[in-house]
């Protein structure tokens, strides 16, 4: 069961780690980090890349055989996001879109009203919509209801590295989800990623935690292991938390060390 693929619309992925490219110090480091991460799907901001340009980040993804997930980063209205998604579909020939509609530059938090509007329009238009959303269980449900192929709640603001600030909301979202739940934004280090998977996320999306690390390639490998470890732990079922100790060694049939009595 640990080998189940992550299914997003028609897409089936063995790796549950989705990468972003923003903040990479160089294309060379990015290429090695993506390879180390084992990712099969990587998101690219369509407003910052020209798909027809050679030698850019898209060429790197092509060379590595990684599927491109266009995103609508930098859009503040549903109208801009829909337009950007359509241009991306035309340029890249993919129905996949990571939908981002943010409210302001300071927090980069999603604007829930615009997001839902854009999601509805794009689903109607035949897109496989993966929305970057708040960690709001109600909004997550509404996004599913309009036909999104996954929901991607933030653990904390983009690039903050603050991890999952409200694990309880993640549990609520996962419990009610009929589509994959993917942590998007906030992961700072491997334990954040493992926690997301332990909480029942189907995958993790991250960029800054790797690209802005001192050693991006090493951190990418750490993230790959963290996704796998967290997923296995979720499937294995963790032990209940207890207030007092519970000895891990058996208390019966052990060697007698009482010097007053012989051991046989």
């Amino acid at each position: 069961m640990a080998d189940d693929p992550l299914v997003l619309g028609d897409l089936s992925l063995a790796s549950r780690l989705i990468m972003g490219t923003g903040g990479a110090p160089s294309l060379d480091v990015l290429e090695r980090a993506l390879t180390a991460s084992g990712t099969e799907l990587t998101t690219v901001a369509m407003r910052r890349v020209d798909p027809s340009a050679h030698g850019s980040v898209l060429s790197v993804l092509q060379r590595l055989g990684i599927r491109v997930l266009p995103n609508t980063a930098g859009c503040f209205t549903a109208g801009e996001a829909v337009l950007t998604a359509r241009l991306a579909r035309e340029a890249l020939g993919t129905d996949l879109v990571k939908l981002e509609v943010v409210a302001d530059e300071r927090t980069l938090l999603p604007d829930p009203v615009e997001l839902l509007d854009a999601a509805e329009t794009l689903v109607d238009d035949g897109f496989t919509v993966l929305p970057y959303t708040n960690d709001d269980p109600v909004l997550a449900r509404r996004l599913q209801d309009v036909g999104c192929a996954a929901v991607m709640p933030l653990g904390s603001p983009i690039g903050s590295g603050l991890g999952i600030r409200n694990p309880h909301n993640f549990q609520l979202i996962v419990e009610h989800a009929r589509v994959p739940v993917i942590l998007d934004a906030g992961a700072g280090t491997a334990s954040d990623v493992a926690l997301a998977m332990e909480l029942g996320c189907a995958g993790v999306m991250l960029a800054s935690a790797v690209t802005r690390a001192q050693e991006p390639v090493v951190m990418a490998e750490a993230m790959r292991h963290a996704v796998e470890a967290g997923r296995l732990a979720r499937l294995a079922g963790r032990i209940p938390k207890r207030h007092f100790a519970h000895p891990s060694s058996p208390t019966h049939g052990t060697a007698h060390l009482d010097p007053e009595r012989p051991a046989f």
Partner: protein
Amino acid sequence: MPSSRTSDVLVIGGGIIGLVTAWRAAQRGLTTVVVDPEPGGGAAQVAAGMLAAVTELHYGEQTLLGLNLASAARYPDFAAELTELTGHGLGYRRCGTLAVALDADDRAHLRELHALQRDSGLASEWLSGRECRRLEPMLAPGVRGGLRVDGDHQIDPRRLAAALLAACESAGVVFHREWAERLTVTGDRAVGCVARDGTALSAGRVVLAAGSLSGRLAGVPDDVLPPVRPVKGQVLRLTVPRRYAPFLSRTVRAVVRGSHVYLVPRVDGELVVGATSEELGWDTTVTAGGVYELLRDAHELVPGITELPLTETRAGLRPGSPDNAPLLGPTALEGLLLATGHFRNGVLLTPVTGDAMAQVLTTGELPDVARPFTPRRFRAAALSEQPA
């Protein structure tokens, strides 16, 4: 019938890198031709001209740091030599750089940079916000701290280009003012190029120094084609009226909520504000968003800029390489050398590039400082790019 021309060295591209290569080669007695429709143009017409080896330090770029420092150290003599020879000033200012932070997040980022600088043995001093503002009173009151780097200087790249052009002319470099259309390869050896006007330019060695266009020259075999891509940068120029002078007395830069902005004040009152970094192919349009972001961040850093005339908006293309470092020296194709891929550091690396290229053209060997930047480091990657 198309004309032809023969020389020891043919330099394709007359930007500052091509010009410095041609000048240094001619100084060593090599007959040199530069092919470029507009010599002295290119990215140098847009660049701000920061010589920022220390403040532009990044993790994983310590090898490049060595080359950057070597070139920065050459600048005083290089500028003096060019000025003496041509009468052109370069606007070389040893005024230093102040990198500041405006909030706690950016301050933490700057602290990390400071630690990396110290670990790399570089001179850089941490200042409190108040100390920063004593140095530069026009800075916003909210400045939380900064790094004073007196060793990061500036020049005016437009003057540099003009001076190099004059130096080339006085050294006898011949200019063929046309586009290079195709590299000429005869029997596994590069022997020249054909210009758009049909002229055949032949030479003992060909140096491809065409900046962001270096990856596009026809006739270059795939396995030696430099992996160079254009990275667009939008740059603004403001003017400081005399009544406000000096306004800023050194280069001021910051990371404002993750995006880089710098203000470079020239002696003549020009104030350069840059720069965006965009992977948009060959597009060089100036966009509302680009200008807005630069002015927004610059205004947050130095609120008084709103009073200054905005005199120019322009976009140029940095020649980006996969590891952000230049490609210098011989390629696997006999007779073809590269001097390209200087990315953010073309102006800074001009002196050391000229010296390294002159040495490799005369002796066949790169100097030690340039050896890690051989184009051959990408050859394995280029070969594995072939579709399976």
